[in-house]
């Protein structure tokens, strides 16, 4: 079967950041599937447009019904790194789809922080319990966590304090920050159960770098 399904990773710069091959798939699409923000990045296009449904398997069904047409899924960054490509690759045969990744959130965040990715834990909190972060906490650990929503930084800060890692530093690069991050206040407020005042103060560290995270946009979050 020809590869009728294209899974295209997009960045904040939209179509401009795509390879020629990925761009050609989008241009020739008969069906475009993505979030409202990604569909908006494509702009005017004659293709049938579908947005994600819940559960995701409903959208998998939408795609399967269009098997053989030129279907393009608009994903984020590297679709195979905690992205929608992982789910779709489970439901479709390897000779049915092509995946076009661009640099993903983890790579961008590591570049901005100057962190070696090979020595950094990468996890996702998207749709998963926050407690899974505890696993990777260790003195001096570097963690890049894909967050669920704009509330995640505060929840992460609270968890760090609760688990005795209140002195950790958090950076919250929202929307994979194409632009330089803006500084703002602390991403967290100390919970009432703060083990000690100094921990709570430390988590509000002056070196904390943060820029606003949109509640609708996954952002990457880091702690060390």
């Amino acid at each position, binding site marked *: 079967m020809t590869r009728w399904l294209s899974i295209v990773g997009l960045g904040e710069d939209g179509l401009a950041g795509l390879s020629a091959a990925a761009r050609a798939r989008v241009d020739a699409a008969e069906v475009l599937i993505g979030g409202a923000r990604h569909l908006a990045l494509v702009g005017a296009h004659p293709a049938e447009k579908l947005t994600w449904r819940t559960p995701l398997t409903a959208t998998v069904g939408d795609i399967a019904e269009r098997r053989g047409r030129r279907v393009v899924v608009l994903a984020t960054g590297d679709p195979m790194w905690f992205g929608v490509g992982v789910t779709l690759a489970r439901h479709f045969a390897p000779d049915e789809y092509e995946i076009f990744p661009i640099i993903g959130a983890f790579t961008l965040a590591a570049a901005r922080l100057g962190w070696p990715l090979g020595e950094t834990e990468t996890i996702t909190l998207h749709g*998963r*319990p926050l*407690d*899974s*972060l*505890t*696993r*990777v*906490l260790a003195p001096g650990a570097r963690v890049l966590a894909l967050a669920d929503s704009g509330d995640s930084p505060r929840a992460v800060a609270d968890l760090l304090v609760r688990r005795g890692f209140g002195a950790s530093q958090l950076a919250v690069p929202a929307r994979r920050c194409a632009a330089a991050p803006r500084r703002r206040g602390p991403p967290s407020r100390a919970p009432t159960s703060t083990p000690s005042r100094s921990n709570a103060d430390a988590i509000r560290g002056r070196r904390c770098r943060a820029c606003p995270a949109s509640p609708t946009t996954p952002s990457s979050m880091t702690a060390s």
Partner: protein
Amino acid sequence: MPGLADDAFEHDGQLTKQAVRAATLAALAPLPAELLWDVGAGSGSIAIEWLRAGRRMRAIAIEREPTRAAACRRNAARLGVPELIVIEGEAPAAFAGLRAPDAVFIGAGLTRAELVDACWRALKPGGRLVANAVTVEGEAALIALRARLGGTLSRLSVAHAEPLGGYLTWRPALPVTQLAVRK
């Protein structure tokens, strides 16, 4: 690496202690993405250490005591493995509908032959069954099981030095008899 401190777990005394726990995990020999059943999970320490042994590990804890099942869930969350599935129910009835495991640990209920048989039947070919006993009756069950299934029977004795007067003496923990057998 397995072998968290005992006080990392909330428990009511029913806890596989650190050194024996580490040895038990070694016998269970976790491989990436494998599924463990922790039967009679108590505080869930074996299942939790199993999950922490790798990124894509899976584990199901089966525990009939509601208070212990709740402690399993809290321990799993606090130790960073909230993906632990805790089934509150009586084995082997509670096994119904569960995916076949790559490894099974039996920490309680060894004297019930139907429970051990159900674990062995459920285990995937090539899977590992590890069972620990601290009672004479449990040990007798393991000796009989070894005669039937083969495997390695081990005795784990750990003593910790503790003060006696102005000196130290060895305080032995209860010895644990362990059977490890591959299907």
